[in-house]
């Protein structure tokens, strides 16, 4: 079988020594992790490897010898290296030698106990140790949750390098008995800023946890649980968004270290998302409060509400006449029209009552935009909902009236045909009615049928208006959800350090020379942007739309109230 040797490209220029790494016998491959230089005492090397094995749980052992001779090949050195094979007995003993600056190395194996001593082909695969160590392999989604022993061969290699971090702590310039060369040999890398931030984050997290626990204690207090207030909180989307953000902050500020990659990425994503959100919110706030734009906004709010009310009044006058050439039932028309006109009059009076306070309320409410752009958008959505409350009321009245009419009609239609709805059996049964029942039933049926166009028209108009408002609110919520769930940290990582998120590997064939082993370069194949978003999406609190198109149309036809954007955790009605 073919022997695969994974050699770190940082060790290409290392001095002669022995190779240590992990031998994966099922795949007939050797993953070289570092080179130990002369002089060394074999016993100490074995001891060191035993310790490393115990701590990292990776079966590190001496795999072979590496000779890098600057001048011509030295015979004595090669014999010495072969003798080393007897001290560190490993089957097979790999010998790699590099002459001068040649790219083409000679690689051979020594098998003492093999049954058939045939020359097996050797494949030399170079890999970038630092990138493979830091990278995280993402298996394809459909194979997630497979058995561990069937894990892909490449993930075994990634795993080996990632878990051997302890091995990379000491290197050849340290004062120990073992002198290693690996990716840190160019100089141990660390960043002062990162270290300082790590030190500062512990007290910051504790402070944040304390503040958040106070806040959540206040929120959960009994005072806020009384019926009118709790109803209000559940209806306002701003409170939901604030609660969601509070949860996020609690996740970030918790003291437990992230167990695995997913949790770490989630914490980082939430942190960056909250940061960007607050930054955008402060930007919006500074824009709003400069040149007193908030004052202008408050000044235009009342005229806009007035204008909407006037438009509605015109609409109702049009409906009370002959809308689109249709002939309405005059009496019912006048009743409904006057009823709705009176409602609009009440609404306008309330708005005018509030008008002196609008500017101040808006000024203070606008300050809460500093909590985040999502909060500002939710406030906008709530303001729209409050301003169009009369449209919602009209829709409910129209829908209820229409619904009653439809149910009455269907029940009387059954009476017309001599049938009845059996509540026990949930089906239609035949029934014998008395003559006076039939007479009254038919009369009522006729009345309801001829009044249907009027009610249907009012219902249609107000449903369309309500749907318009719902669509606008839905778009705002869609934007809020997008900002909430986008994994910004993962996307930036994919852009700047694409080797951290790996979908797989890719191989490139390097220059070959006859008689020398096959040389390949293993590079990391990064995850696509779509894959990144799909894997690391943050969960949001809303799930919509609730109904499919067919059931929505059915509800509209029957006059049942529709609430297309339903939030998770709300009781189904």
């Amino acid at each position, binding site marked *: 079988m073919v022997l695969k040797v994974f050699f770190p490209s940082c060790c290409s220029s290392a001095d002669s020594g022995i190779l240590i790494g992990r031998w994966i016998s099922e795949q007939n491959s050797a993953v070289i992790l570092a080179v130990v230089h002369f002089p060394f005492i074999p016993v100490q090397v074995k001891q060191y490897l035993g310790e490393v094995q115990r701590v990292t749980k990776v079966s590190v052992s001496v795999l072979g010898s590496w000779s890098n001779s600057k001048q011509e090949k030295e015979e004595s050195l090669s014999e010495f290296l072969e003798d080393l094979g007897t001290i560190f007995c490993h089957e097979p003993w790999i010998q790699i030698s590099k002459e001068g600056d040649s790219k083409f190395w000679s690689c051979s194996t020594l098998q003492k106990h093999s049954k058939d001593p045939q020359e097996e082909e050797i494949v030399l695969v170079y890999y970038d140790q630092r990138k493979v160590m830091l990278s995280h392999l993402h298996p394809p989604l459909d194979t997630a949750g497979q058995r561990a022993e069937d894990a892909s061969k490449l993930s075994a290699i990634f795993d080996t390098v990632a878990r051997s971090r302890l091995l990379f702590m000491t290197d050849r310039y340290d004062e120990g008995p073992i002198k290693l060369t690996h990716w840190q040999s160019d100089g141990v890398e660390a960043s002062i800023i990162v270290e300082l931030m790590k030190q500062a984050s512990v007290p910051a997290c504790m402070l944040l946890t304390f503040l958040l626990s106070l806040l959540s204690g206040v929120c959960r207090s009994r005072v806020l649980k009384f019926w009118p207030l709790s109803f209000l909180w559940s209806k306002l989307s701003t409170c939901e968004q604030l609660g969601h953000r509070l949860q996020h902050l609690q996740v970030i500020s918790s003291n437990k270290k992230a167990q695995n990659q997913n949790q770490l990425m989630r914490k980082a994503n939430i942190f960056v998302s909250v940061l960007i959100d607050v930054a955008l919110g402060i930007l919006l706030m500074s824009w709003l409060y400069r040149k007193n734009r908030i004052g202008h906004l408050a000044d235009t709010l009342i005229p806009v509400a007035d204008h909407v009310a006037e438009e509605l009044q015109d609409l109702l006058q049009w409906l009370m006449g002959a809308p689109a050439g249709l002939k309405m039932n005059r009496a019912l028309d006048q009743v409904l029209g006057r009823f709705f006109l009176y409602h609009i009059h009440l609404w306008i009076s309330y708005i005018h009552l509030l008008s002196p306070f609008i500017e101040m309320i808006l000024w203070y409410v606008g300050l809460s935009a500093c909590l985040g752009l999502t909060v500002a958008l939710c406030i906008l959505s709530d303001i729209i909902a409050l301003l169009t409350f009369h449209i919602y009321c009209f829709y409910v009245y129209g829908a209820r009236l229409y619904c009653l009419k439809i149910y009455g009609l269907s029940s009387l239609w059954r009476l017309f045909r001599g049938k009845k709805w059996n509540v026990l059996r949930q089906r239609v049964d035949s029934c014998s009615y008395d003559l006076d029942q039939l007479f009254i039933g038919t009369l009522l049926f006729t009345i309801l049928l001829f009044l249907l166009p009027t009610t249907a028209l009012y219902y249609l108009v107000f449903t369309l208006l309500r749907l318009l408002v719902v669509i606008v609110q839905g778009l705002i919520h869609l934007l809020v959800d997008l900002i909430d769930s986008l994994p910004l940290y993962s996307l930036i990582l994919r852009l700047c350090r694409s080797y951290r998120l790996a979908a797989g590997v890719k191989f490139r064939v390097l220059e070959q020379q006859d008689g020398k082993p096959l040389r*390949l370069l293993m590079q990391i194949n990064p995850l696509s942007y779509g894959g990144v978003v799909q894997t690391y999406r943050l969960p949001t609190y809303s799930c919509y739309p609730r109904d499919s198109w067919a059931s929505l149309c059915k509800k509209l036809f029957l006059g049942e109230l529709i609430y297309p954007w339903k939030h998770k955790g709300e009781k189904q009605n």
Partner: protein
Amino acid sequence: MAEERRFRSASGAPIALRRRQHSASCRELAVRGPRLQLRSLSAATSAVWLAAYGLFALSENSMVLSAAIFVTLIGLIIYLHFVKIDQESLLVIGSLGIQVTSSYASGKESTTFIEMGQVKDVVINEAIHMQKVIYYLCILLQDPEDPQGVSEVVPLFQSSKPRLDCLIEVYRSCQEILEQRKTAPQSS
């Protein structure tokens, strides 16, 4: 050693197959499609600009012209970077796996590597494509639960669509290497 032979694609366009043997168990097969023709590029650009000039003559709005230039540039960049595939190659490494690469005209390369343990076989299949029946080469992936089953079919050379003679050459080269893993002692 490298050799190159000319073939035709399913739609009649000339394509070239290049075979390189890097070692006893490593082979690279690359199919290169026809390059972007200057003729078709200038024809498309002139058509768009003539239409824009006609609209400008009708509406007297100079924004139409700048919009047409913008659209042409963006369209060309999108075409070169996402649509036009110059070369599709297959790298078969006996003990490691099969790597499928598509190189786009703008230089972008999109690579997928399938490990040898997941590969069940490489076969030539027939498919109905629009009004024609064409042959295509595909890799059958092993189903982890069922040793006889196939979990996925990965079609190769989808944009260049070589004809059967070219596919047979590629098939033979692949099978020579895949057979080696059957003769080698399997260690599970």
